């Protein structure tokens, strides 16, 4: 696309969209939204970049290998967080029982492992959205 205005506006807005997505991921446990919604926003900021500036440029920003890694290990991170409970001798995915400090309600670092799980899920969702986009674009061409 050769639209100058679109490119300029995207250049200004998209970084903020991406940061906002991370904001939603990080505040998933204390406010509406969450890791899925936040991950979608992060992914969409990147997808918008790729559609406006061209697929090639978008691909150059994040190699396939990185996407595969984030996709796999975002989920694995969830599993590892669940294993914390097992290592403490309580059931899988236990939070307070595992002795994790829950913090003050409403604070950013509260909710024990939920915060960290949300991080993993957000990364996974973002990379999955990007992978879906690229797969569909590849299929089309």
């Amino acid at each position, binding site marked *: 696309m050769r639209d100058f205005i679109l490119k300029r506006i995207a250049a200004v807005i998209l970084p903020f969209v991406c940061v906002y997505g991370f904001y939603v991921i990080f505040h998933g446990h204390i406010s509406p939204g969450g890791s899925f919604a936040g991950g979608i926003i992060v992914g969409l900021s990147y997808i918008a970049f790729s559609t406006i500036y061209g697929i090639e440029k978008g691909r150059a920003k994040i190699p396939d290998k990185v996407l595969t890694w984030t996709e*796999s290990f975002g*989920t694995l991170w969830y599993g590892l967080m*669940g294993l914390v*409970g097992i290592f403490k*001798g309580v*059931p899988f*995915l236990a939070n307070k029982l595992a002795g994790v400090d829950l913090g003050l309600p409403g604070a950013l670092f509260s909710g024990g492992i939920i915060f960290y799980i949300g991080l993993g899920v957000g990364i996974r969702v973002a990379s999955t959205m990007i992978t879906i986009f690229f797969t569909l674009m590849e299929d089309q061409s």
Partner: protein
Amino acid sequence: MTAMIADNLPVLVIIVPLFIGIVLPVFARRLRLVEGMVVLAEALGLVGAGFLAYMVVTRKGADWIYQVGGWPAPWGIELTANSLAVFFLAVVMVVSLPIALFTIGNLRQEVGGNMRTARFYTLFLLLVGSLAGMALTNDLFNTYVLVEVATLSCCGLVSSHGTPRAAEAAFNYLILATLASSLVVSGIGFIYVITGHLNMGFASQGLEQIWQAKPHAVWIAISFVLVGFGLKSAIFPLHIWLPDAHSSAPSPASAVLSGLAVKGYMICLLKFLYVVFGPDLMKEFSVDRILVLAGMTAIICGSVMALPQNNLKRRLAFSTVAQVGYIYLGFGLMDINGLAGALFYLASHAAIKSALFLSAGAMISATGKKKISELAGIGRKMPLTASVFTAASLGLIGIPLFSGFIGKWYLIAGSLDSGDFLPTIIIIAGSVLCAAYLFPVIRVAWFESPQQAEQVNAEQQAEQPDSAAQEGSRGIALQDEEMHSGQQVQQTAVYQNVQENTPPGNQVKDPGTAQKLALILLTAVIFILGIMPGPFIALAKRAAAELLMLR
């Protein structure tokens, strides 16, 4: 450490395949490592399932209830390791290990590309993990999520060939399976609206108290669940997606789809009907009659539809439609022998149909032929594969000494107990029809002259352009039943591609060691289930008793 693992076994059995499966694409470059990890995950799952079964069987009285996250029942998700759960878990792990072994070394040429192979394994392990979850979970919504994971994995496995035919089959399957999922989720929604619980035990208590006040809502919930899972497990009038999907998938995928995935949905239906709604409500709404009727129709119609199929995998797929009928019939008998027979038949059919699909796949990939008539004399060239196919066929028909016989025996006993002779007649007629569609394959494989087949082979070898080698993977993609002779080049390419792994001059022979091991393991399972069914039938009877007398 050991105690730590033993205490958390119900959840570990589910998450180990899931999480090992998910990291596989990272190691796609090193396919040996990926295969090793898959077999490792399967082996761990098998050991875990065996140990869990041992612990549940030796533990008298109450079920082993595992609370995920430490949250107690009405709020948290429960995993219940009871006899039914460990029975199905053992079936899943015992049958999926040989299938995983079968894929070693030869999946890449069927699917094409390292990354695609790794993703195939990811889907395979996701399916295995979700099936294990379906066996164990005691939560309605958790069941829905696991069913969805299994459905998407199945669709991915169906389309993993990359052919347009497979894509079409996968799309039809996806649409119908998602329709079924919507029905299931609406059914769960109705149960939740009526009772306010998603835990199976609590929902069951709620339904017991309230169903007389709101019979219509319960009726809607039952019918949604019944049609939803019926569509997913391909009971006769709702089977239309199955033959296409199961015959156009790669052979290991067909084996796991026909052998295990369909069974998982049936176990879910069993849990919904017997655990959530309960035997009394089933009788009240005459669900048992519906199940028996659907089962009998499926046995006859599935077998009759399998008869004219000339494509080997299609014939086996239609045979699955018929065999699903036996299990539904057993579910509907509401009798301890019938239900135990249905569970045993489910296990036996899982092993038998996997063995049939894997040996058929080995024959097809060695010869490049898909039609039964073209497989003449294959028994001389691939003795082991053809023997396994024969043994599994005899098992499916229900010859004594094979596992199918025991299952049918108990089903007949159950139907006689319930005082109805029609199911008995149908079961026997189904066996005869089963013999009618499987014996021709055996006859062609062992007793028909291979002259014709060799002639065709020679023809193909005569023209072997070098350029075709480059198109090898493309040739695989087009290896489909509607390949017309204008595509002879590609056909040769397929042939050549297969030859790469086999020494020249002796093209059609038994597959490699891992594949042989897988086939022998499955045959051993069929024989063990048939010769000494004692402990297995005892476990199935215990599960049936728990289901029938839960209240």
